[in-house]
């Protein structure tokens, strides 16, 4: 990246006197324009994203029913966290489901996406068609995805029809059975995730130096061996991004379970619990904020990894 930097002066770390000289080249109007160009978007972003995020962390240490004004906020210390860990039945379920989501995503759709990219990259007949098919779910919203798959898994849906029992009493209830529904949802979420992994991978593979392929080919290595030993390691940046995307998506999961059954009865997720604590029957801002803060703490690691990976070369 450092080679593609196109700054007009030397790197950002230039000595202070140099910078001062540089800045003095700006007219007053230029300086005002620069200030506006950076300032306006930054204020909007910070005010609507970062300020609320930090306030949430603060609120997680308070009691607030959300009905009274800001005056009704009382300091709570770690009590919200303590209560969530000891009293909140849905919390361990949500935690387990989020962990399951992450584990499943890491071991099933992500490798499958990579495998599909490997197959598509061979450019066999019809691979354009398959590629389009795999990309399709990415343009569907998760809400639509939930509805579309409902037609497949509902009591009288496609799967039960194929299994030969669509009786509302005895047929398998794929979304209603708390032991089955999370797996069905994970399958549906994968349907969407695989295409994205594949897309990232195909783009990465196109960028791999073809001479690496040729060299391996001359050495008599098989396609699969070349992929595993040559292409895969050279795609380390893409791999890191895929890991980050997988972790963040697993933590952010919300829409799909919300549209299926509002995240109840086996489909509890941290993201839904936050929502339920704010808009549900009992408005417990403190609990919602504490849950959101936990989500935040868990997202910090992948976010840092992503930033490190992305900006490392620039420094």
């Amino acid at each position, binding site marked *: 990246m450092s080679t593609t930097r196109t*700054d007009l002066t030397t790197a950002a770390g230039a000595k202070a006197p140099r910078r001062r000289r540089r800045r003095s080249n700006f007219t007053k109007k230029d300086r005002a324009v620069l200030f506006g160009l950076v300032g306006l978007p930054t204020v909007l*972003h910070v005010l609507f994203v970062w300020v609320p995020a930090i306030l*949430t962390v603060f609120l997680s240490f308070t009691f607030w029913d959300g009905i009274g004004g800001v005056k009704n906020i009382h300091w709570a210390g770690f009590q919200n966290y303590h209560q969530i860990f000891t009293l909140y039945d849905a919390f361990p379920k949500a935690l387990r489901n989020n962990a399951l989501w992450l584990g499943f995503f890491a071991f099933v759709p992500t490798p499958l996406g990579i495998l599909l990219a490997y*197959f598509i990259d061979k450019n*066999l007949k019809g691979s354009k068609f398959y590629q389009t098919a795999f990309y399709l779910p990415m343009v569907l919203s998760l809400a639509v995805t939930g509805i579309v798959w409902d037609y497949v898994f509902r009591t009288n849906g496609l799967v039960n029809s194929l299994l030969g029992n669509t009786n509302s009493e005895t047929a398998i209830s794929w979304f209603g059975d708390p032991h089955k529904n999370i797996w069905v949802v994970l399958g549906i979420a994968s349907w969407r995730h695989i295409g994205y992994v594949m897309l*990232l991978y195909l783009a990465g593979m196109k960028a791999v130096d073809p001479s690496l392929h040729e060299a391996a080919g001359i050495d008599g290595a098989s396609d699969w061996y070349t992929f595993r030993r040559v292409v895969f390691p050279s795609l380390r940046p893409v791999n890191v991004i895929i890991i980050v995307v997988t972790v963040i998506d697993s933590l952010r999961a919300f829409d799909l379970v919300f549209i299926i059954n509002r995240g109840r009865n086996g489909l509890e997720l941290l993201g839904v619990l936050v929502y339920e604590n*704010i808009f549900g029957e009992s408005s417990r801002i403190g609990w919602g904020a504490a849950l959101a803060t936990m989500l935040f703490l868990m997202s910090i690691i992948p976010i840092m990894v992503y*930033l490190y990976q992305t900006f490392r070369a620039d*420094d």
Partner: protein
Amino acid sequence: MVTGKKTALAHSITTVFLTIFGALWLVPILWTMYQSLRPYGEVLKYGSFSIAKTINFQNYYTALVQSEMWRYFINAVVVALPAVLLTLFLASMVAFVVSRYSFAFNIPLLMLFTAGNLLPAQLVFIPLYRMYLAIPVPHFINENGVLYDTQLGLILIHVAFQMGFATFVLSNYMKTIPKEISESALVDGASVWVHYSRIMLPLLRPALASLGVLMTTWIYNDFFWSVALLKTGNKRPITAALNNLQGEFFKDYNLLAAGATLAFIPTLIVFFALRRQFVAGLTLGSTKG
């Protein structure tokens, strides 16, 4: 000869594998579309897994006209169009400064934007919801006089969030534009504003197009923010409105199938018409340009 056989075998394995997966990918969509073309009464009688005796667009007509679904499409446009344009405009401004000038804040600022885009929405929305209830707006925007439950509020949060991603992508793209172009502009005595608006902005067009397609799809597909920040069902864009329609149509699943199909058709059209831009947008953001 042996290797030839081996390749042939590998090819057929690949084909079988791709065919199975390809079917898995298309069947749910096609199945829903099939249900949407059938009257509910017939499905009730023969089951959903049956050969249709009647195929028509009655459900589409009912959903769009009688249930007034068209309103939600207008809502979607009213939200997505300004949100995307504003995001691209603001993001291109920041990207321009951090990629064309050497300020000490460049990298930290880019990091702030990029990290902000990756934060979970749930972390942001509790105080944001209270803020929206407290921020006054003129009564012609919202009769309750606050930002909550307005499409303007929804637009603002989309812009604030998506800007993080767009800034990152655009600054990467801008770094690939030769610096000689900027240098010659400066020699000619161009001001910062002219440098941005007349020289760099036109060069950004391909990246803006890709990002625009991608972000339109994302904002169109948004569910969380629309549900959380718009209380009035009639104000919600189509994707979030599906939540209400699900309740309203739940007695008639074939009608809901038509509703869902109507909701995703625009994104399919965009995808097929502008696939290159869509894919380019996604790749621009992940791997460095």
